[in-house]
């Protein structure tokens, strides 16, 4: 089984985040692997471990793919530490400023190229990333590849014949059980599993393991003129939504901090005063 895990390199929320020329700046020292993407790596490893045949397990591969600037290698290295066997960072001036459709086109072309060597059985991603919260690329990728969309999974199971997946999908008020044949696009939530801890051997190996550096030239032949997005969707030039301006939000007014005396009365009085003062009660 060959599984592509999509990684997003996101700003470390404890660091200052900023925009330049209207786009999010992700510098090496500031970024981390999007937390939920560890659940995606874990889901891939568990699917492979669920294969009934030992030879199939041995022949299986988890390929980590990220579309990110230089610091994005860190996200791929993190996936190596967890057990990914191969990692690719896709970066190109032509990709900078891509919208959802440009991103989808580039990732789809990457997956098609990887599928040339041997078929890809599944693409697994985290259901959302902390910087953008768009959460739509997995669904778009399924549409673009023409594969089933098994997104927002809180549980992922491989069928006994290892040819299909069943997921529990939880969105807002709805819980559904969905099943589809492979290949499929899956996105997982943080409830899907508990990511394993990196072991020492893999941490050491990850240091030496190279991250393959791909550019648009590497995936050029694999764009398709499809309903979703072709090569003309890439970058700022191809974006259907263009950023006019970004501005730091005006700071919140100073925090009014009130220390309670222990019985709750001081705090309660402060809260009621605040609610009354702002017509909230």
């Amino acid at each position, binding site marked *: 089984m060959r599984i592509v895990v999509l990684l997003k390199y996101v700003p470390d929320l404890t660091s200052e985040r900023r925009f330049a020329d209207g786009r999010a700046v992700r510098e090496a020292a500031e970024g981390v692997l999007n937390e939920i993407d560890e659940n995606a790596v874990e889901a891939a490893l568990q699917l492979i471990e669920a294969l009934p045949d030992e030879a199939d397990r041995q022949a299986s591969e988890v390929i980590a793919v990220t579309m990110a600037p230089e610091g994005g290698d860190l996200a791929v290295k993190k996936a190596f530490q967890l057990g990914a066997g191969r990692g690719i960072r896709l970066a190109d001036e032509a990709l900078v400023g891509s919208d959802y459709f440009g991103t989808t086109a580039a990732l789809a072309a990457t997956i098609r190229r990887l599928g040339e060597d041997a078929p890809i059985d599944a693409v697994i991603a985290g259901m959302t990333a902390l910087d953008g919260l768009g959460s739509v690329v997995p669904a778009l990728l399924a549409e673009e590849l023409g594969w089933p969309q098994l997104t927002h999974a809180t549980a992922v199971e491989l069928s006994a014949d290892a040819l299909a997946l069943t997921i529990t999908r939880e969105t807002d008020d709805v819980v559904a059980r969905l099943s589809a044949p492979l290949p499929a696009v899956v996105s997982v939530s943080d409830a899907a599993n508990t990511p394993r801890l990196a072991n020492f051997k893999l941490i050491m190996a990850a240091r030496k393991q190279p991250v393959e550096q791909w550019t648009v030239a590497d995936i050029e032949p694999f764009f398709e003129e499809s309903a979703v997005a072709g090569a003309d969707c890439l970058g700022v030039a191809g974006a259907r939504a263009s950023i006019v301006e970004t501005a730091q939000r005006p700071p919140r007014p100073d925090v009014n901090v009130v220390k309670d005396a222990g019985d709750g009365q001081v705090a309660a009085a402060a809260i009621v005063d605040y*609610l009354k003062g702002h017509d909230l009660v």
Partner: protein
Amino acid sequence: MSTPAVLVQLDSTPSPDGPRVDAVRPVTAELITLGRTLGHVDVFTMGSPSVEALAALGALGVRTVHQAQLPTSLPVDAHRTTNSIAAIAVTVAQRIHADVLLCPTGFAAKEIAAVAAARLGAGLVTDATSLTWAGGEGDGKKVLRATKHSFGGAWNGTVDIITDPAVVTVASGAVTVEPAATPTHPEVEAVIVDPPAPKVTVLSREVKPRASDRPSLEEAAAVVAGGRGTGGDFTDVYALADALDAAVGATRDIVHDGHFDRFIGQTGVTIAPALYVAAGISGAPHHVAGIQGAGHIISIVNDPEAPIVELSNLAVLGDVAAVLPATVAAVTEAKKAAGSA
């Protein structure tokens, strides 16, 4: 540009028992109110709107209700998939030459919006907080301009969608519902929709029941939420929510520990209430990502260094177990005093 056509989905969260739409949900009314500032508003639905629902749509100024008819060969379970609902949105949008497709927020709605945008060749903005038409001077071409929050609300962005149609998901609570100046009598038109063959089999589908005496998290004007600092005892969280007519929420930890069923945050519900009360919540990035649209934030924590303190308008430092019941009593007293005044 002639008056733009705006399309809104009517039955955003389908009821489990199905084919009828009995009411217009607040989130839909928000989308229609916003849509009216952009052009004529039509809605699409799978269910048959009741007389009451049609009256409510008329009060909101909706022009036409497009009721989709899916092929009888399509299993009923497959009616509510991304594939099918996106197909309805696309068919109706093309039929009325829609310039804008507005969808609610939420993970399922965002996927529908994205797939519909893909099939329409349209640009997409998610979680917009405002929409206006911009441009139109030079070459006369107007574009839809959206604002949205990024990075946990620390930044505001302005984005132009340069395609026609444009697809937008709108953050809940971004708009205050207002009736139309001129009410309408919406027509119901049947539309035959033939979605692409489903690739996914729906084995089961269950809509979680919600307490009907309490506003839902997404739509409530006030939310009281509890975190680890409550120790998992939500008695006082419920009591304060009752006193404030608020919805109840929780952090991911509390839900994972089994004390509550819905959490606010990155992978849970995104909320934008006018008032948010955080009880025993430290303000981890996961949680903060879900409250970026909140208006007034009041936090009750014992740790002055907790990140939530910085985000609050009022932070009270104290013991949640003491502060919550005292606050419930004080709020109840204040309401009584106001009521008798």
